[in-house]
């Protein structure tokens, strides 16, 4: 009995492994933990229920699952689950901006939004953003009620360039990954795309922009 049960028990014990496992990708892709922490940096330390600064056990199936028996990664390359996870993460971050402080995922979020978020993400257009802030009672209101089209074309252009640098890097860094031949054209196209939706509030524009940027290889690779 004991002998026959051994493989079954071994399999059952092995099935508990992944909840402890740090997932990783192959092919030069950054580890899920690095991706999580990088997204945390991009959003100035903001946390949502879906993504904070640490890889949670719930994230493992999205960011790279592991062999139940051995713990080896079985998702070698980022795939559809990662894409969905990033979309959900970005959407959740933008929802935090519109959530009353007492209902936010982290007690630090309100302070981050009010103090760090805009200087970090809108650095090139800070004077215009400050003017909008003077008309609203909080940065959260600016980000969820005022629109991208209220920035000048030049400001929009520079803000998008800043977002590209925060996520993918400078043009030299982007070219080094060998995926994009013309970073300037990518910048122009993204600015045009976001400007066409310029009547939308800032958080909606950021959701669109970062859903594109955070899924590109230039962000996902070392």
């Amino acid at each position, binding site marked *: *009995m*004991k*002998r*026959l049960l*051994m*493989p*079954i*028990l071994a*399999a059952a*014990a*092995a*099935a508990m*492994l992944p909840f402890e*496992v*740090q*997932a*990783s990708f*192959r*092919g*030069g892709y*950054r*580890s899920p933990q*690095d991706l999580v*922490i*990088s997204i*945390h*940096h991009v959003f*100035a*330390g903001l*946390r949502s229920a879906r993504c904070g*600064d*640490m890889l949670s056990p719930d994230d493992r199936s999205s960011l790279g699952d*592991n062999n*139940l*028996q*051995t713990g080896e990664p*079985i*998702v*070698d*390359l980022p795939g559809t689950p990662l894409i969905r996870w990033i979309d959900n993460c970005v959407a959740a971050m933008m929802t935090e901006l519109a959530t009353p402080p007492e209902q936010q995922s*982290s007690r*630090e979020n309100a*302070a*981050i939004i009010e*103090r*760090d978020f805009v*200087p*970090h993400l809108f*650095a090139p257009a800070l004077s215009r953003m400050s003017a909008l802030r003077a008309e609203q009672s909080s940065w959260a209101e600016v980000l969820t009620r005022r629109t991208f089209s209220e920035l000048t074309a030049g400001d929009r252009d520079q803000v998008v360039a800043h977002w590209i*640098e925060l996520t993918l*890097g*400078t043009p*030299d*860094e982007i*070219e*080094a*990954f*060998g*995926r994009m031949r013309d970073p300037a054209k990518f910048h122009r196209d993204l600015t045009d795309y976001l400007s066409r939706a310029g009547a939308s509030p800032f958080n909606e524009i950021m959701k669109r922009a970062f859903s594109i940027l955070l899924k590109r290889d230039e962000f996902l690779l*070392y």
Partner: protein
Amino acid sequence: MKSILLTALLLSATVAAAETVMKPAARLNHLSRVLRGHSPSTDERRALQSAVTEGREEAFLAAKTDEYLASEAHAFKMNARLEELFRLQTNGTPLSPVLDPTNPPEAPGYGKSNFTLYGHVNSMNHLFHEIARKNLSWDTLLTGKHYRAFDISAFRGFALTDYGFLAALVPDLKSAMGTYADVPFAPETGPIVYTDVSFAPNDPRVAGALTTARFFYRFANTGLNKNRRRAAVIFRVFLCDSMSAAIPSSEGKEGAILDLMFPHDNRMTEEQIREMAQGDGHGQRPDCMACHYKLDPMGRTMMTSPLTLSPLASPGRLTYRTSARSVDVPVRGIGELGAAIARQPEYLSCQVRHFWRWFMDERVPLSPAREDQLIREFERVGRRTNDFVRIMLNQPEFYRISAPLTESEIRAQRVKTFLRKCQDCHKDQFYDGNDDGKFPDFTSWPIGGDEPEMKRWVRRIQRVMDLEHDGENPRMPPVEAPWRTTHSEVLLIKNWIRDGAPDESGRKQVTP
């Protein structure tokens, strides 16, 4: 004419080489992402631009390498690599900027680059950080005798902490208590309480990361596994012996196993169960003994410490065989075991390969000669962690631009990922068709070494997965295996074989 041609050829080769090496901006980005896990800040990028303009980019990048290697982010990243290697989570947490006391909210630049403090909550987490933060010898993971023991029972309600784990060795642990008074890690519960504990350099009862509460609880001992689980992790992490459980052949026994799991009439007599169990000689089968002969003697070094660390060192052996030599070292306790492992050439080779995997594009092969050279470097720098990381960063391949994966590379990678799951069970099994009596490595193509062998194995895979009928009635994976093939995996392998089992370059390895 010949010399002109030669010069032209040399020149074009130089230009081609230059094109594959990253520009300074890309180098800084790569360096930052690899060492810290995230990109450089805007300020760092601007500073690099100025350095490039002034022609001092090499000095700038060298200074940044020093800065990053000394950073908490690098220590945290090394912690994450070790977590991945050990397959556990140490639960260390990067402190959010709001909790960073060195950069209060009113300070200029707040929120920009102050993700600098990391919380330690147990001795393993602390050791994994310290090994990079203090540039300790990599052997400390095996031979370390200094611990920072944490008592976080009040913080998270954990009953089993480092204090309880070490209590039998250090009875007066609490009398030497210290606190992280300057780091308000958990403001609602007060500062974290810790005690620094040191043992004699030759103490046989303790061995770096192996004698931490986190390691013991993660790889729990049971009456059945008798510390073999812990031994298997030690073999895998420090000697690169994968040591996955071999699943014994189930041929002809599938029905019996299913009957046992789901009895026909919901009740079975003990006699019936005994009858089924007849003939399964786990522990004596060659498949099982391939691991047990080395796991059992190593497991004995932890025999007296089932849950907490025992004050008595338990004797055991470091035993294993390679194709070149046999190792059999009697040891007294896990402390001596760690020291014995650190003396083996297989340990050096294994650790160098870990570093290569962490710092190089995996498509860059590590040749035996190169591995030997890196082992010499590892020894030359006294096996110190950051010093060896620096050697890896100085390898010419580190800053080389790697081309995007081609479609055939992606397909080959997916197929190998699938075959690796088969390999995990089969690699330690014996098979009389090969000279060394082992299954060939399914991820090393051509499987079996040449085209006829590859063809034979491909046909076999086709048969056992029942690819002809889209995997309707497969024999592999066996019913007791903890995984099943998905339909998309079946199609992936079926189409790969249909197309001649192409390798990474798209070259057919089998004539369909």
